[in-house]
């Protein structure tokens, strides 16, 4: 088990956003946290990343596991070139770092862009650079907070493929926050559904489909329908029969 979350809760002032969230993620798994906006899925991720320490409950990540984070926006440092941004997380010899960063820039398709500044990049290029910056540190766990939500459909698909390619070559554990059901289904081994006010983990769905998956496939379509049903306002009264059916499909 790479990562374990026990009884995670978080409130902002009076308002309880999360309560009693429990899950664990195995090594090399791709897990999506799915939920409507404002359900606290990013809050879970920020707690995992150590960006937020005011949570209740317990998060355990083995200390030898390096954690990388990719934000919703690229968040490149505007005063640094693409290459300098990519080496940002590295310590030690500059030449070595740059050589390493160049390899990852090539992987994300930005080989030619290393001298450009962030203002000269398109949204997709900037997000690729951010991905390279996170990958350079060779994280064992990669956390992504709606990383493709601001991109057009085509760029989004390209970067989803890129993420799968990275996963295949590095075997890194991936936890992805998204509100895009298609994205969650296309990428993940498991989809964790956050629901309720305050949110808790409503479902842990195992998507037992082989890769490469076909985006328009009937199997994914069925999953999507079921998840939509689950999300649709039936916050307190789950249709447990349906849930069992989904469970059996897995």
């Amino acid at each position, binding site marked *: 088990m790479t990562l374990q979350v026990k009884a995670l809760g978080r409130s902002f002032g009076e308002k309880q956003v999360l309560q009693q969230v429990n899950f664990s993620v195995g090594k090399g798994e791709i897990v999506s946290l799915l939920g409507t906006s404002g359900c606290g899925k990013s809050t879970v991720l920020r707690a995992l990343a150590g960006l937020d320490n005011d949570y209740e409950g317990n998060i355990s990540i083995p200390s030898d596991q390096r954690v990388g984070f990719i934000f919703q926006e690229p968040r490149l440092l505007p005063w640094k070139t693409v290459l300098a941004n990519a080496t940002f997380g590295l310590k030690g010899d500059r030449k070595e770092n740059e050589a390493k960063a160049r390899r990852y820039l090539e992987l994300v398709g930005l080989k030619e862009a290393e001298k450009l*500044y962030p*203002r000269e990049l398109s949204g997709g290029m900037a997000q690729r650079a951010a991905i390279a910056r996170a990958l350079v540190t060779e994280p064992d766990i990669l956390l992504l907070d709606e990383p493709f939500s601001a991109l057009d459909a085509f760029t989004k698909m390209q970067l989803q493929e890129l993420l799968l390619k990275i996963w295949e070559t590095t075997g890194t554990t991936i936890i992805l926050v998204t509100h895009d059901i298609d994205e969650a289904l296309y990428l993940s081994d498991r989809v964790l559904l956050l629901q309720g006010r305050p949110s808790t983990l409503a479902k842990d769905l195992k998507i037992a489909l082989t890769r490469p998956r076909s985006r328009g496939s009937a199997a994914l379509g069925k999953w999507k329908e079921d998840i939509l049903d689950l999300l649709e306002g039936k916050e307190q009264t789950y249709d447990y029969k349906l849930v069992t059916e989904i469970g059996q499909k897995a």
Partner: protein
Amino acid sequence: MWKKLRTHPVLLGSLLPILLLAAWEILSRAGVIPAYQLPAPSAILSTIITYLQDGTLQDHVLLTVYRLFVGFIIGTIAAILLGTLVGYSELAERFFDPLIQAFRSIPSLAWVPLFILWMGIGETSKVTLIAVGVFFPVYLNIVDGIRGVDRKLIEVGRMYGLDGVALVRRIILPASLPSFLTGLRSGLGLGWMFVVAAEIMGASQGLGYLLILGQNTYSPDVIIASIFLFALLGKLTDWVLKLIQKRSLHWQDTALAK
């Protein structure tokens, strides 16, 4: 012809000054404006040349620039130290900022009598006055700049294990550089204002002294010559800072960046 005039970067803007200068010259020569009040541009130019030739103008200019420079450096260093501290630490803000804000509401020229009383009429009081003038705009811009650093970039730094000094050095300072440079430019502008004030209050050399000399000797040409030199030097130093600003902020994604 008209098209060239419209599109040339300097031509159109220099038209009005040239016309005014010509009118002024003509009116002065014709005796419409009395020379003891407003001498002709050519007379002012010849005054400047005379002073240049006997070498006194260089001394005046150098001393004024020297005073400004020393005061500017001292004021800026103080502003960087306090501004970084106050901008970064909330504790330091609550401790220092109320007092600094209180001092800010004192018009800086009101210090002059006190500084002269304390430090005499020599260089120290002048430089101190200039430093005080430079301090506030630089300080305020640094504090604002640091406060305004995008929380999202700070999170990036934290995600890569930065905190304390490393976070300040690698994220906060570069991110607040635009604001700091704006502060430097307005600080420099105020510095010029205060160097005039300091030299008017009592000096035996410097461009400000020339102003007073001109007043006391009924020589408007000397006054206008030194006003002109103040304008020239002010513009020149601001241009240097602007150049530095442009060089170091080329990464900015603004309309001005191009």
